[in-house]
């Protein structure tokens, strides 16, 4: 796996996503506390931290999936391209922010229909167009060569790693601007993980990526910037190589070195 050299300065990119003083509660539980962060265009931000630190909650707030939970409360603001995400209608917001879930989650459809599901929602009906999109997206997710002869088969016949790359292709098919990865490799073996990471590094050229991961080494391998969450607070965020070589906080260092978490 090639280690990417992070860009020397993150401030070159204009911010794609900005969270300001973000607080989130589920009922009485204060899940995120005063989170401020910026995610630049075309960079990979890794969010690391132990369980229950609010990483996934943060991710699911960006595409407003948390709203589906009862007693979800939020204060502060999140902006996408300087526009408050709560002023964008939720369907077009989610179209812009594609998500890949922790476990492979193919829909109970064929491989082709899984990829075509998204474009069909956004009223692309033409068969040839759909086929072209499916091919392009499967190629982008490094899956095309493995499935091109069996697009009609059930997606559940694929291996776990292939299913996860299918989910990536499905997410790409709606032409998002940002990709949200929620521990995408937690259920995968090292080789499948390597393939997914390879796909991510390539995808960075065209997309902004937020990667929540429990695997600290994965964050080091793929991301430009890394944010460390602990108990709902953003402890620190910086260039990945700074975080991993000279973290400012003791807790960050302890977590990275595996002393807790």
């Amino acid at each position: 796996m090639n280690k990417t050299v992070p860009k020397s300065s993150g401030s070159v990119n204009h911010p794609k996503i900005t969270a300001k003083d973000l607080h989130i509660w589920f009922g009485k539980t204060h899940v995120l506390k005063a989170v401020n962060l910026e995610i630049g265009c075309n960079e990979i931000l890794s969010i690391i931290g132990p369980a229950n630190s609010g990483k996934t909650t943060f991710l699911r707030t960006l595409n407003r999936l948390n709203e589906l939970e009862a007693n979800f409360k939020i204060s502060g603001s999140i902006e996408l391209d300087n526009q408050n995400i709560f002023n964008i209608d939720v369907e077009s917001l989610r179209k812009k922010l594609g998500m890949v879930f922790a476990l492979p989650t193919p829909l109970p459809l064929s491989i082709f229909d899984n990829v075509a599901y998204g474009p069909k929602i956004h009223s692309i009906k033409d068969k040839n167009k759909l086929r072209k999109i499916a091919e392009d997206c499967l190629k982008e997710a490094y899956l095309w060569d493995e499935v091109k002869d069996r697009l009609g088969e059930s997606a559940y016949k694929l291996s776990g790693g292939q299913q996860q790359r299918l989910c990536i292709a499905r997410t790409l098919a709606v032409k998002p601007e940002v990709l949200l990865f929620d521990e995408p490799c937690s259920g995968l073996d090292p080789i499948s993980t390597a393939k997914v990471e390879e796909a991510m590094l390539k995808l960075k050229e065209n997309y902004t990526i937020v990667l929540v991961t429990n695997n600290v080494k994965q964050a080091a391998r793929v991301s430009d910037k890394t944010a460390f969450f602990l108990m709902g607070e953003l402890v620190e965020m910086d260039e990945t190589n700074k975080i991993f070589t000279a973290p400012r906080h003791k807790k960050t260092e302890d977590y990275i070195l595996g002393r807790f978490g």
Partner: protein
Amino acid sequence: MKRNPQRTEKIAFFILLLSALLVVMPVCLIIFIIIEKGIGALSWQFLTDIPRQGMRAGGIFPAIIGTIYLVTGAIIFALPLGVLAAVYLSEYSKDNFLTRMIKLAIVNLAGVPSVVYGLFGLALFVIFFKLGVSIISGSLTLGIMILPIIIATSRESLESVPYIFREVSFSLGASKWHTIRHVVLPNAIPGILTGTILGLSRAAGETAPILFTVAAFYLPRLPKSIFDQVMALPYHLYVISTQVPNVEEKIRFGTAFVLLILVLLMNLVAIIIRYQFRKKKRW
């Protein structure tokens, strides 16, 4: 006496097995007795002829047709309404006073005795809506009776569709209805059909709800429209068993046999459809 765990185990096993066998016995006996006593009455004429000589001879064709009409009508009415209500309850409703009232009403609907449905159908459809004693009144009454069954099983099968499928669909920018229409409902169909099968069997077999709303005592012809009366198998069975003297035993059991077969056939259709859908479902 010392307790011997192995002996206790054996006794427990024996009692449990005996109970299970006792449960099977009535089913076998019912089928055996009905087939044994009724098979002699079965003939092409019995299935396709109208009743003759005050129902002591001839066939039961109008009653077969009547039951098919009534069951079909009840399903046409109850299936869409029940499924849509179930979708609302399991996908849209929030836990508030209104939802609790609706759920309470459905539970109560399931507990109403069937003869009360009959009286209700008489009052509402036959008299108030002036639909008369007719297939439509009977179908609607039966439909209301099987609504709780269909709603309960539909809700169960909607809720058994993994939540993550909905999240995936939402995350791709699908609206709630699109998600339900394209992801949730298709995967809930086998369970919904199970509810349909249960409702269908119940509707085919009930006598009380059709007693005042549609069933004709003796009508040796086919109905002309849905506003016509019709004979129906369960009621016909009741009539020839208790109201008409000197009906041969084999005609009575033959009628019961036909009713059983009819329900079985209708179930079979639903089971085949369900099987087709289950084959496609994989997760």
